[in-house]
């Protein structure tokens, strides 16, 4: 395991870079890889070509600030949300945008279903699902009065359930059922949810420096505590075997093969130069990308080596990251307003 890393520091010049006006809070490739959407803290939402970063069409701002972005599964619709309590949708084939008033409070997270044209929206303490085919203007299902502001929204991989993280655990909802389908109570503040692609596990990164895990079918719980800072960045390998967690000083990779990570030690990846601020596993591949507060973008193959196989420079503290759907390029956004695409 002592292979010397061959660092390609700054060797991989960005395929392209664009300079936006503000701290980038979110970047998302369209599912076909042709388009790139970005959201900025000042409220701007941009749509750029994936090949060269050219602006495609101006999209409306979110007054006060943009917070969330999500492409529908087939890439037909881009949705954004922000502090104005609105969801904006842009229909790619008809090239029209629409604004949906979502409710009182910030639209903190958005997630399109992996199974159909349904958009889950977290607005303040409410979760709503909009069926875009039936009712593009409003919610079909609403679950108001959650225990606290909803911090993170996810769909189960089969598209049947929506998970909402908040202070006090996770609520699992089923469209059509006005109650809570399943509650995963836990005394702590959930910041970010990540369901395993195989639907077996639900992971949460938490304010109290821990990662919590639920086995979805049984509700069994596991906790990985003792991280040096709050946990906001976690990602699953497409095969659901590995869960990577980026934190203040390192990246830990937990092994879920067999009976799972209970009693196992994580792999601790080396070479992390600064606080990890974004993380993502390669779609369909074994590469792990992590962006850091010092502007570096590291790539590992965690199943093979602890040291990074390459280090690229993003041009500013990395604030958001997304892999191209074909797994050949990484899109990064930075705190200084740069959006760049790097080939790996």
């Amino acid at each position, binding site marked *: 395991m002592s292979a010397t890393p061959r660092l390609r520091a700054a060797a991989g010049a960005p395929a392209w870079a664009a300079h936006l006006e503000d701290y980038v809070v979110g970047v998302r490739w369209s599912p076909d890889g042709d388009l790139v959407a970005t959201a900025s803290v*000042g409220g701007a939402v941009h749509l750029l070509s994936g090949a060269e970063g050219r602006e495609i069409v101006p999209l409306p701002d979110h007054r006060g600030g943009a917070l969330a972005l999500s492409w529908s599964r087939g890439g037909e619709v881009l949705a954004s949300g922000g502090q104005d309590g609105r969801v904006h949708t842009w229909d790619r084939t008809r090239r029209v945008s629409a604004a949906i008033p979502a409710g009182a409070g910030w639209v903190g997270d958005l997630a399109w279903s992996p199974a159909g044209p349904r958009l889950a929206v977290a607005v303040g303490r409410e979760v709503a699902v909009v069926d875009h085919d039936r009712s593009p203007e409003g919610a079909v299902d609403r679950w108001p009065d959650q225990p606290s502001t909803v911090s993170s929204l996810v769909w189960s991989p089969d598209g049947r359930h929506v998970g909402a993280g908040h*202070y006090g655990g996770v609520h699992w909802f089923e469209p059509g059922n006005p109650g809570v389908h399943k509650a995963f109570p836990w005394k702590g503040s959930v910041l970010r949810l990540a369901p395993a692609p195989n639907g077996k596990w639900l992971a949460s990164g938490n304010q109290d420096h821990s990662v919590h895990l639920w086995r979805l079918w049984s509700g069994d719980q596991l906790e990985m505590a003792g991280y040096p800072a709050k946990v906001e960045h976690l990602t699953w390998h497409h095969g659901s075997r590995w869960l990577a967690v980026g934190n203040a000083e390192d990246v830990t990779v937990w092994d879920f093969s067999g009976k799972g990570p209970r009693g196992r030690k994580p792999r601790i990846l080396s070479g992390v130069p600064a606080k990890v601020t974004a993380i993502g596993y390669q779609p369909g591949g074994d590469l792990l990308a992590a962006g850091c507060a010092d502007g570096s973008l590291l790539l590992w193959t965690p199943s093979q080596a602890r040291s990074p196989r390459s280090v690229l420079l993003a041009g500013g503290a990395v604030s958001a990251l997304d892999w191209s759907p074909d797994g050949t390029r990484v899109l990064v956004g930075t705190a200084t307003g740069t959006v760049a695409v790097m080939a790996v």
Partner: protein
Amino acid sequence: MTIDLVTDHRIPVTVLTGFLGSGKTTLLNHILTEQHGQRIAVIENEFGEVGIDDALVVQAEEEIFEMNNGCICCTVRGDLIRILANLVRRRDRFDRVVIETTGLADPAPVAQTFFVDDDMRRELRLDAIVTLVDARHVLAHLDEVKPAGVENEAVEQVAFADRLVVNKIDLVGDEALAAVERRLRSINALAEIVRSQYARVDLDAILGVGAFDLDRVLDLDPQFLDSGEHLHDETVTSVGIDLPGEVEPRRLNDWLGRLLAEKGVDIFRMKGILAVTGQSERYIFQGVHMLFDGKAGRPWGDEARSNRLVFIGRNLDRGELESSFAACLAR
């Protein structure tokens, strides 16, 4: 000796507390009017009437999160973390943040947010907790008997304060005002009292205080009332200790550790300047509940070495605190 001029670039945060009717919104508008050269972000927990157009005002709904770290008093404000994390990312940075709490807010989670959350610590600096009281009504609020297990928020807001603004002094006579100030002192012997009418205070008295900055703890001068004023059945009080000599570091550590573990829930604020055996500099500390911060301060030089500590809290046993601390002195 070199003077360390490392500038703190973090954005200062002022927390404004006080009962409904004490004049918080008036004071807030006064700050915004007088500080018009500064960009100030205001976070409000109840609907106020901020009359200044260029201030950024964000409404927030109080969300108190207990931290899952085995410390029951370690609570933070989830709403503030969310809003402030977003604010500090903006290109148009703010010079100052003012958080106006509701009249019923517990100041502890607000204060602890700035020490417990990583992002808050890095980007923001809690400058001071400023509590407004209405000179005419404050004693009634402080004396209000609450059902068992319910806190008297007015008492807590006074106990947590770094600055106590006694407002509407024109509505009370000199004697009544003196009684109010004596009462405030008996709860909180550390806060500076500022008098005002129509919440018009000299802003230098409440902004740029640096109340949590250890470098600013130059001298502790607890303004104690040893004049038999403890006639009320007061559960929240200040206890000051002033002992010459030096403390033995291991005993001090044990004592502090035990004290915070056993009494941390009841200790709202504490500050101290200590002389530790073998250390040429003062040891300075401050704390909020179980959150503790300490470092070396100015050298003692030729000055007589001594120890001064102040605790503000609930059900503090002065005799027990004094004797257990005295046991830490080097013999």
